[in-house]
C-alpha cells in the first residue's frame, strides 16, 4: 500500500534520512523501531508531506505522494497521530474530532456527526468528556483523542508516531489494545515506536531505523526479542 524508496530528507545541512526503503502492506501493522534521533519522526513528517525530501519517492496506492501538499495527502487517505498527541488543548473533545474530519465538513455534516457517534461508541471515555477542553484530559485520554481524531479523516493508512510516549504501562496496554482492534477492523497501520516490546507483540512486520537508514527488515518471530530491543534502543553502532 505504501512504498518508500530511497528517501533522503535533510534539515538544512543535517541529513536525517539517507536512503530509506520500506513497504507497508495493506491491512497489516508495520512497525518502525529505532533509537532516538534515528529519523523515525522525520520519516513520518516526510510521508505526511510536511517535509519535502531531497530525493526519493513515496508511493501510496500507486500514486506518487512526494511534492503533494499535506492537504492533498490527507485527502488521499493518509492520517497521522502525531508524536506528543498535539490535541487542540483549548477546544473541546468534540471539536477536536470535528477538526479531524475537517476536509469532509463541507461535503456532509451528517456523515461527520455519525462518525463522531461511532468514535464515542468505540471510546466511551471520550464521550464522557465530550464537552471538556482537550487540554484537561489525562495523557491516555489525549492519546485516545488523537487516535480518534485521525480516524475521523477516514484514512486508508494510519500513521502513528510513538503512541506510548509518556504514558503509564497500564495505559500503554489500553492503547495497544486499541491498535489491535483497529487492525482487526482492517485498518492499515504504520507504527513508529520506541517501546519495542509492545510494538513487536502487535506488528506483522517491522523495520529498524538507525542514523537515517533501514538496518533490518523482518517479522517479529525471525529475530530474538532481546537482540531487537538492544538494536532498537542502542543502535547497531553500539557504544561499547
Amino acid at each position, binding site marked *: 500500500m505504501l512504498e518508500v524508496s530511497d528517501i533522503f530528507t535533510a534539515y538544512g545541512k543535517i541529513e536525517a534520512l539517507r536512503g530509506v526503503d520500506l513497504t507497508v502492506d495493506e491491512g497489516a501493522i508495520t512497525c518502525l523501531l529505532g533509537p532516538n534521533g534515528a529519523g523515525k519522526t522525520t520519516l513520518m513528517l516526510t510521508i*505526511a508531506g*510536511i517535509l519535502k525530501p531531497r530525493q526519493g519517492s513515496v508511493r501510496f496506492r500507486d500514486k506518487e505522494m512526494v511534492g503533494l*501538499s*499535506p*492537504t492533498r*495527502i*490527507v*485527502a488521499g487517505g493518509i*492520517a*497521522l497521530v*502525531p508524536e*506528543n*498527541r*498535539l*490535541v*487542540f*488543548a*483549548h*477546544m473541546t473533545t468534540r*471539536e477536536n474530532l*470535528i*477538526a*479531524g474530519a*475537517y*476536509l469532509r*465538513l*463541507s461535503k456532509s455534516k451528517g456523515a461527520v456527526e455519525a462518525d463522531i457517534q461511532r468514535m464515542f461508541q468505540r471510546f466511551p471515555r471520550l464521550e464522557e468528556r465530550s464537552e471538556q*477542553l482537550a*487540554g*484537561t*484530559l*489525562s*495523557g491516555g485520554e*489525549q492519546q485516545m483523542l488523537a487516535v480518534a*481524531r*485521525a480516524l475521523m*479523516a477516514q484514512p486508508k493508512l494510519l500513521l502513528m508516531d510513538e503512541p506510548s510516549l509518556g504514558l503509564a504501562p497500564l495505559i500503554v496496554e489500553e492503547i495497544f489494545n486499541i491498535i489491535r482492534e483497529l487492525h482487526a477492523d482492517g485498518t492499515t497501520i504504520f507504527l513508529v515506536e520506541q517501546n519495542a516490546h509492545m510494538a513487536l507483540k502487535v506488528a506483522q512486520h517491522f523495520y529498524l531505523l538507525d542514523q537515517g537508514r533501514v538496518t533490518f527488515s523482518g517479522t517479529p518471530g525471525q529475530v530474538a526479542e532481546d537482540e531487537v530491543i538492544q538494536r532498537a534502543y542502542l543502535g547497531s553502532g553500539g557504544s561499547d
Partner: protein
Amino acid sequence: MIDFIQNSLDGVMAGSAYGLLAIGFTLIFGVMRRLNLSYGPSIMLGAFVGTMLYLQYQSGALIVAAATVAGAVIAGMYVERLCFWAIRQGAAVASMVSSFVIWMQLEEIVTIFFPERTYAFPPLTTAEPLLFGPFFLKVENLIMFAAAVALTVALHVVLYRTRFGLKVRAVSENPLAARFMGINIGSVMFWAFALASGIGGVAAYLIVGADAQVTPMFGLWATFKGLIAMMLGGMGSIPGAILGGLLLGIVEAQTVWYLGAEYRDLAAYFLLFLFLIFRPGGIMGQVMAARETAAARRV
C-alpha cells in the same frame, strides 16, 4: 457621583471602539504569534478611501462605510503577503520590524495624496444628544457602542459556529497539528488577517464618523489604543481585548473629567505601566496561564 457615572458611560462607549481595535490586533497575534504594527495605518488608509469618496462624489454613508472596510482589507492583505507570509520562516521580530516599515510607507502614501492636516468625514449622525435623567448620551457614541457589540457577537459566531472559525482556532492553537488535519495554514492566515482588517475598517468608520473628521495621525492613534487595550486585557484573548478596551475607555474618561484633557494619554500609559508591573498577563492573564499550565502538565 453623577459625574463618575456619566464618565463611565462615556468611557464604556469609547472603550467599545478601543476593544474593536484590540480585537483586530489579538486575532492576528493569536493566529500568527506576531505583532502587526501596520494595523492602525492600514485601517487609516481605509478611512481615507472613504473620505475621498465622500469629498469627491458626495457618496452616502453606506458606500463610504463599505469603501472604508474594503480599503482596510486590501491594505491588510498587502501587509500580510509582504510582511508576514513572505517572512514566515524568519524570526517573529522580522515580521514586526517589516510591518513597522510598511506603517511608514502607508502613512507617506496617504499624506502625499491628502496633504492637509484634517479632512471631513461623514458623521455617524446629526442627532442631538439624548437625555436620560441626569445623563447625556451622544447618539454617535451609542451607535458606535451598538455596532461594536454587534460586531463582537458576529465574530464570536464566526469563530465558534463556522468551519472557517474552526480552522482559525485550530491554527491559533497548534499550526503543525492543524496541517496534519489537512488544513491549509497559509490560506487561514491570509483570511484571518483579512477578517481582522475588516473589523478594523468598521472600527475606523465608527471612530472617525463619531468625530466627523479624519487625519493621517489616526493610524498612530489607533495603534496605541489598540495595543494598550490588548495588553491590558491579556495578549491573545478576545474577551480580554474587549475588557481591556472598556477599562482603557473608562480610565481615560474619568481622567479627562477630573484631571483635564492633557492628562488623558498620560493616564493611559500609567495604567499600562501599572499592569506591566503588577499583572503583566493582563486582565485575562491568570485565566489563560492557568489553562496553559493545566494543559502543559497533561501533554
